């Protein structure tokens, strides 16, 4: 299970990469593995829209389930990954890289303190696999 050290995680299996004031959001390796083959991705927010922490911001659909993705932090959407609708399988092959979902300009960086670090997220995943 790939859980990069430099990201923050949610208990709902989203990750966020913080660079300066920008947060890049995606779903984790654990999430893609649980969902199996991803066949459809719909990002629900458009650039310019404001997300609050916990807002549904994308839907990911696999051959066996559909999952909502919730914003790990609040902010204004600055970009969405235009490649995903045509190549949803990127989420299976490169969940932390090419398959980022959207980028936001963080409005409350303090929220990040409430997220899980890599070690805590690994424990969270292992507890569910037990």
């Amino acid at each position, binding site marked *: 299970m790939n859980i990069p050290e430099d990201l923050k995680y949610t208990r709902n299996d989203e990750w966020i990469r913080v660079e300066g004031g920008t947060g890049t959001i995606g779903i984790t390796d654990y999430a893609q593995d649980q969902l199996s083959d991803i*066949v*459809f991705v*719909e990002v*629900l927010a458009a650039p310019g829209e404001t997300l609050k922490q916990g807002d549904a911001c994308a*839907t990911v*659909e*696999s*051959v*066996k*389930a*559909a999952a*909502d993705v919730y914003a790990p932090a609040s902010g204004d959407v600055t970009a969405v990954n235009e490649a995903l609708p045509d190549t949803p399988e990127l989420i299976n092959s490169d969940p932390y890289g090419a398959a980022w979902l959207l980028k936001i300009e963080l409005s409350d960086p303090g929220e990040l303190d409430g997220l899980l670090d890599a070690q805590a997220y690994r424990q969270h995943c292992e507890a569910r696999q037990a």
Partner: protein
Amino acid sequence: MFIPHTDADREAMLSTIGVERMQDLFKDVPAGHRFPELALPPAMTEMEILAELQDLAWANSSARELSCFLGAGVYNHYIPAAVDSILRRSEFYTAYTPYQPEVSQGTLQAIFEYQSLIAGLTGMEVCNASHYDGATAAAEAVNMAYHHFRGKRNKVILSPGLHPQYRETIRTYTDGSPIALVGDHGEIDLLAGPDGLTPLIDHDTALVVVAYPDFFGRVFDLTRLVEAAHRAGALVSVSTYPTALGLLKPPGEFGADIVTGEGQPLGIPLSYGGPYLGLFATRNEYVRKMAGRLVGETVDNRGQRAYVLTLTAREQHIRRERATSNICTNQGLMALAATVYVSLLGRHGMRQVAELCYHKAHYAASCIAGIPGYRLWSQDPFFNEFVVRCPQPVDEITAHLLEHGILGGYDLGQDYPQFKDHLLIAVTEMNSRAEIDVLCDVLEEVSNG
């Protein structure tokens, strides 16, 4: 009788939930109402009950004995004998998609063929496995458009030319939701047609719902309305009469985003209101917001053609409360009837039926328009149904027609107050010229008092 639980099962369940006796589960129902005395007549033998039911059936008059000029949403078309014969084959004889669908390849293939035929007839890219009837299909279009815009557009414009019962069903479906329904409460001039809806379209509009032909039988060019809706970013749903599409331009060709319709005219009997068939077709880009089941064609691991239920993650058993609709059932048997009917008629047969309806209806309309006291309400092009202003109350006229063995038409005053004394008359290939002439003779008799 199938009793799935043994006494031991039941005791185990009761003890798990901490209830001693089954009767205790009903203790909240007042004692007097728990086992009320039912006023049921004594039991009868099979022979007696058959005679009783036969008596009841004979009290009815059916479209087989009468000359039927009643339409208003369902139509008396000829059903080839092969339709019923195939429907009754035991391999097909179920109303539902099986719960292990892939073991029933024949059923899935029939649904796949149905979807393909309806997509072809409507000019659309994808068609689901069907809904209950034309009204519920129209309501699912409203649901779909609302979910497509994720609740950011809350206005739905209903043409007053959409079937009154469809509008009623849409109101029932959307009751309690943020969807605002406008357009069918006197906002526009009925006679002028659906272009009058254009000024109502704005950037809060999710969907415009129109009928083609409309409830009064009229056929309008909807191109301008569709363009206006698309300019505002809204979708358009067209409720249609599939028989008419044998002759008319398919809605997909003038830009409809959703096409719905009552599938009854495709080989399904009138049957006093059902079971019928809800047609629902749309474009590929909206397929994930579409309700209902969808059968796809694929190849299995031996390279053989196979049929599967596909895109099921849209459905409520997976997507739960975020699904577009909580309805995934379909009218499997009725969809099969439509499949057999359309296959038997083929492209030329569908056109021929449509032409017969069109020409006979136009003959009837011109005859009736020539009778003193009667007047056609509209001069717009129509398919097989038209509105006649009558010299007397419609119920008196239809009662008189019934005495002559004629089911005379639909009293529009029931739904539209401005249409007091207006009769909606439908003509199909089933009406002979002699029947139409008798209809005109009796109408003339009525007007002479």
